[in-house]
């Protein structure tokens, strides 16, 4: 092993790779633009859909209430609901999205309320359909107000205080810091994207630097130079690692910027509508997520280098590496699932452990015991993968597939 030769190979591979469009796309373009583009597309599409649904005046059918003109009139007076004539196939019309909801009332609804009884109201809806949901929200608000008004009237008639029906008042207040609130939502998302991108950023350079050399016939050229195979593989490995870390760093930077801009937009939205979510991830958390990604990037770089070297052709390498994406995505997805919590056992599961600890870090929780354990175990896996890659580069049957 010769440090000078490793540097010479690394610099050459870096220059060579930066001139390759496919490497530049996977290493620079994708991590920079993927997150903002996804956010913009999802944001624009959902804003349009929600906006359209909010602006729409939902058509609602009243079923029953034949002898209850007062409730029917009150419903008809609602400004943001359109009452359409009743029909027997109202359920089908909801499914066909011709109307958004139907209110089923007893025919003597007015009489039941007048004599102080309890009337049943059923709202038929299309669950999960956003316009139907908005229609139902409006109907529920109407009936809530109607109920409160009726209760107040009944209490007044009996000369009882209005607090009789309201003995306790429940209030919810968030006491968790904003980054923890956003961490619950974003915590799983950030490492998920960063881990996937640090893998995809490694794929093309790993293939190009190994099986690519076989296909182009440059492997024999470099092997007849006096550089040792260990120095050669380490120079190549450093280049692949650079690609992986650059992809991860750019992905983190791009996500940070996207969330910062998103946070401002959401802040504005909250001021108007009272809705919203705080996007707050500290620079310290970003730094530690990156630190946790480093051994994983080493693992990916060494493993992909070894697997690609084993292949005879680019096509064969792709067929080996494509299933690997699923192997990496699966634990990353598991970490997003609610209820999956970090423990000592899971700290030894590569990828999943990094994903889980990053999720905690993003939400502002630093379990140093797990951070050290996961960093250490990931380093061991990374070293094993690198050792395997170095060993494979010594094997003639792999280099030449004799």
């Amino acid at each position, binding site marked *: 092993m010769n440090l000078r030769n490793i540097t*010479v190979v690394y610099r*050459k591979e870096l220059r060579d790779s930066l*001139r*390759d469009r496919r490497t530049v796309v996977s290493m620079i373009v994708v991590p920079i633009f993927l997150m903002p583009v996804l956010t913009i597309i999802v944001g624009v599409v959902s804003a349009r859909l929600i906006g359209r649904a909010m602006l729409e005046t939902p058509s609602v059918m009243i079923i029953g209430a034949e002898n209850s003109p007062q409730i029917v009139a009150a419903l008809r007076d609602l400004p943001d609901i359109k009452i359409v004539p009743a029909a027997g196939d109202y359920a089908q019309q909801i499914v066909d999205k011709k109307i958004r909801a139907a209110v089923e009332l007893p025919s003597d609804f007015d009489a039941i309320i007048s004599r102080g009884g309890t009337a049943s109201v059923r709202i038929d809806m299309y669950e999960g359909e956003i316009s139907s949901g908005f229609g139902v929200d409006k109907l529920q608000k109407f009936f809530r107000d109607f109920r409160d008004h009726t209760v107040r009237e009944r209490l007044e008639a009996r000369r009882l205080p209005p607090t009789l029906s309201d003995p306790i008042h429940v209030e919810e207040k968030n006491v968790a810091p904003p980054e923890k609130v956003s961490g619950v939502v974003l915590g799983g998302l950030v490492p998920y994207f960063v881990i996937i991108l640090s893998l995809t950023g490694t794929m093309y350079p790993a293939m190009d630097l190994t099986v690519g050399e076989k296909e182009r016939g*440059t492997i024999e050229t470099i092997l*007849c130079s006096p550089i040792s195979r260990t120095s050669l593989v380490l120079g190549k490995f450093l280049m692949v690692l650079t690609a992986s870390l650059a992809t991860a760093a750019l992905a983190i930077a791009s996500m940070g910027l996207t969330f910062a801009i998103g946070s401002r937009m959401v802040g504005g939205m909250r001021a108007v509508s009272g809705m919203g979510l705080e996007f707050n991830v500290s620079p310290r958390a970003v730094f530690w997520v990156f630190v946790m990604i480093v051994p994983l990037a080493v693992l990916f770089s060494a493993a992909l280098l070894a697997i690609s070297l084993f292949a005879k052709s680019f096509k064969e390498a792709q067929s080996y590496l494509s299933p690997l994406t699923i192997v990496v995505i699966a634990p990353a997805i598991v970490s997003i699932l609610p209820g999956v919590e970090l423990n000592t056992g899971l700290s030894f599961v590569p990828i999943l452990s990094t994903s889980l600890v990053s999720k905690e870090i993003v939400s502002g929780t630093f379990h140093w015991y797990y951070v050290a354990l996961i960093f250490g175990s990931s380093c061991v896996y990374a070293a094993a993968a690198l050792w395997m890659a170095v060993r494979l580069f010594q094997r*003639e*049957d792999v280099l030449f597939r004799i």
Partner: protein
Amino acid sequence: MIVAESLGKEFRNKKRGAVRAVDGLCFSCDPGQVYGLLGANGAGKTTALRMLATILAPTSGTARVAGFDIRKQPERARGSLGFLSTATALYGRLTALEMVEYFGSLYGLDAASVRKRTLALFERLQISAFGDRRCEDLSTGMKQRVSIARTLVHDPPVMIFDEPTSGLDVISARTIVEFIRECRKNGKTVVFSTHVMSEAEKLCDRIGIIHNGKLLAEGSLKELRGRYGHDDLEEIFIRVVGG
């Protein structure tokens, strides 16, 4: 110089079992000499030369290249030779200058020496006009000249050529043949493999005929003609390999 001592290579093949590609190869080549390994496709020429270039490790025997044992000092042996074959391609995304300088650096030359030597070689091989162009944009002939510059950048005492003219047009092949002659003139030890009889006749001081991994006959062209009673090398070759 090069001395091969019972050099052998056995491959393990799942279908064919143990395959002996080179079997007890012995020959030597002195400085200022061209030694030609003559053989049909699959005779073991490429494997033999790859072992001399330390790209493959021998399974039996050994060889000395410029005084270095290929088993014990493979990196020193590689540092003393230039290896050229049609399989030794160039890095397409590097310019001709970057390509040659990259190899100069790997041979341990400092930046100033690499630049000086590369520019001198470019002048001599008429590469200067396209030295800043990427190798992927060069014609076959231009690529051959850059490959030659790559093998010479560290001024090695030993040159190994594995079927260097295979697949080349007449003009490109002629450049290679002239280059081999120049190497001999400059006192380098040259070993090259071919299955083109006319090339061997033109260039070689000594010829070894290899078949099924074994060296069946060896000598100067004159000695081989006397031994087999034929002037035509092709006839001699056929008689030796028993075709």
